[in-house]
């Protein structure tokens, strides 16, 4: 029985800007157990990064408003003070970001930056911190860690930098690792390596992972559960296998359909979702996907709740269509028939 580490309940985040109030996240809920990987998938502006950063408390600002609960170790992370939050960051929850080049301070050595993370939370002297840094670099697969630990970030390649970032994030043995688009800025071959590394480390450190990406292919292998986000909401959530074999939301169909696949006939066009994501300041009424949904109907003027409509428990979605209609429409969409509509 896995230990429940994190519970996000009905999280909402609003930002006040000069253009109006941006409703970045609304009604997001999920749970994370030890040893599990949750993938959060969505396009830019879907709210996935804001959700992750809010868990870390990095979105706290004079113009930000929060609703709901982020429950960790019985505390609501949205309400604790900044100083208390500092104790959680890095220590209990680690985070790595998209661009490893700009995410590392260029004037300090890699080893120094890792040691800094360690010494921020544990009473370790410089030498020991340095040794641990070397060990961490070894664990993330950096060759010659004893000499590379004294290098500067610009002397590392992109993949190695991301490994160093991972080492830094895991240096204090956090229970949760949040990876925000960790592979987007890397070559495809390196991407696979990094994802594998994260999976392996999750087992080594016995932690849980939240993997954020816009690319379903990246999480397909390692995620136990996937949440698809759109316009600040989760539109579908469920075990990975379920999501891939029985997706319930038209947006998910679009995402799956837009993955280039070798088994498709050459003449078929790649399906893409028409239109653009809505403005988070002026969201449409009702279902937020309605303007881009080829299957929208009368009931869609009312926003669907995130509910379990399918036989498998734990597989939730936000679509009014009944399950059978969904399945038949879906198979047409994913195989690209719909794109040839007269």
């Amino acid at each position, binding site marked *: 029985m896995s230990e429940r580490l994190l519970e996000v309940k009905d999280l909402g985040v609003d930002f006040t800007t000069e253009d109006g109030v941006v409703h970045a996240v609304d009604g997001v809920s999920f749970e994370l157990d030890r040893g599990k990987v949750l993938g959060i998938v969505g396009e830019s502006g879907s709210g996935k990064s804001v959700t992750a950063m809010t868990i870390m408390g990095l979105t706290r600002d004079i113009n930000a408003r929060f609703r709901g609960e982020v429950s960790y170790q019985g505390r609501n992370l949205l309400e604790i003070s900044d100083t208390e939050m500092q104790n959680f960051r890095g220590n209990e929850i680690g985070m790595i970001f998209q661009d490893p080049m700009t995410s590392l301070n260029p004037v300090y050595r890699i080893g120094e930056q890792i040691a800094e993370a360690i010494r921020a939370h544990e009473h370790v002297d410089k030498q020991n911190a340095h040794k641990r840094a070397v060990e961490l670099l070894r664990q993330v697969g950096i060759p010659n860690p004893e000499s590379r630990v004294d290098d500067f970030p610009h002397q590392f390649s992109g993949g190695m930098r991301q490994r160093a970032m991972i080492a830094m994030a895991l240096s204090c043995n956090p229970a949760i690792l949040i990876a925000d688009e960790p592979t987007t800025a890397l070559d495809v071959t390196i991407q696979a390596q990094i994802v594998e590394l994260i999976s392996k480390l999750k087992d080594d450190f016995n932690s849980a992972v939240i993997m954020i990406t816009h690319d379903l292919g990246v999480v397909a292998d390692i995620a136990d559960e996937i949440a698809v986000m759109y316009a600040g909401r989760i539109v579908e959530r469920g075990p990975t296998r379920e999501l891939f074999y029985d997706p319930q939301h038209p947006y998910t169909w679009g995402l799956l359909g837009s993955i280039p696949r070798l088994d498709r006939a050459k003449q078929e066009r790649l399906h893409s979702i028409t*239109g*653009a994501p*809505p403005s988070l300041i002026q969201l449409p009424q009702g279902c937020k996907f309605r303007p881009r949904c080829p299957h929208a*109907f009368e009931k869609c003027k009312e926003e669907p709740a995130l509910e379990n409509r399918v036989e498998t428990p734990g597989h939730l979605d936000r679509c009014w269509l009944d399950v059978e209609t969904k399945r038949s429409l879906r198979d047409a969409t994913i195989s690209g028939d719909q794109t040839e509509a007269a």
Partner: protein
Amino acid sequence: MVQRTESEFTLDTAAELAEAEPGAIRGRSPWYLAWRRLRRNYFAFCALALFILIVAVCAAAPLYAHHIAHTGPNDEHVLDTVKVNGKTTQVVSQGGIIKGKLVASVPIGPTWFSAGGKFVLGADVLGRDIAVRMLYGGRNSLLVGIGSSAICVFFAVVLALLAGYFGGWIDFVITRFFDLFYAFPVVLLGIALGSALAINGFHHFGLNIQSGSLWIPLLVISYVLIPYVGRPLRGQVLSLREKEFIEASISQGASPIRIMFSDLLPNIMSSVLVFFTLIIANNIVLEAALSFLGAGVQDPTPSWGKLISQGQALIVTRPMLALAPGIAIILTVLSLNIFGDGLRDALDPRAKVRVEH
């Protein structure tokens, strides 16, 4: 439950639905956004208004001289008298030995319009009306300041574009040129050029400029500042040069001139505008400094810097002579700096400090 069959819903219908929905994100040009940000900055606008007011007042110098003060900027009234509140007073009091003590001759102090508009701010040792000289001096200082900025920025932009776009030996030569003049302290270079040219004027390249002309400080200052504007702009052009849209232009066969002026120039425009504003402020102070030392505007032409140096000797008895032009400089330069600051904030795409709620 109402069901719709696939044939009634196509992607076109979806597109129609999309159009009917509110909430699409409208694209706005960065200039529009900048203008909107600037509009909200009341402080900057007040500063701009102040600057324009100062320029207008100085431009009206001849009107003031003719109608209110009834004298020109260089007319000396050493031996004249004037009626202050009905009392006849010497414009420049007699010096000499009075009651056994050596007394300096002191010009009249500010009359603040009680002498019918004459000598509102007082007179200097040569009996010249300070208020009139302030306005004419302002005209000259502003002319030199704004004119030198325009010339400086123009050449700096051209050189930066050439160096940044072409690279290679053109860049090498232009950068060496910049570096060379960076090696001189600005004031010292200005003094060197200003004094050397002040004696005999400038008679090369078909130009014939006499030694007392306003063109000398103007050209000297514009020349001296070119590296300070050119180098940062060149840096910007260099980083823009690497961007893909330039490569795209080149691959479409655009000529260098076209790329420089249609692609590169608009992208550095915001920096150019900010520089222009701030350099005017800098040049007004520089001109004042040069004129104060004697290497700028030459006698008898007035400028604010010149007035300060002339008023220095009388600071104890007639502080207004040195204070007034100084305050004028401060107000002008301050208003430009505040506006330039607001301009920079508005044009900067990265919102650093945002609205508080």
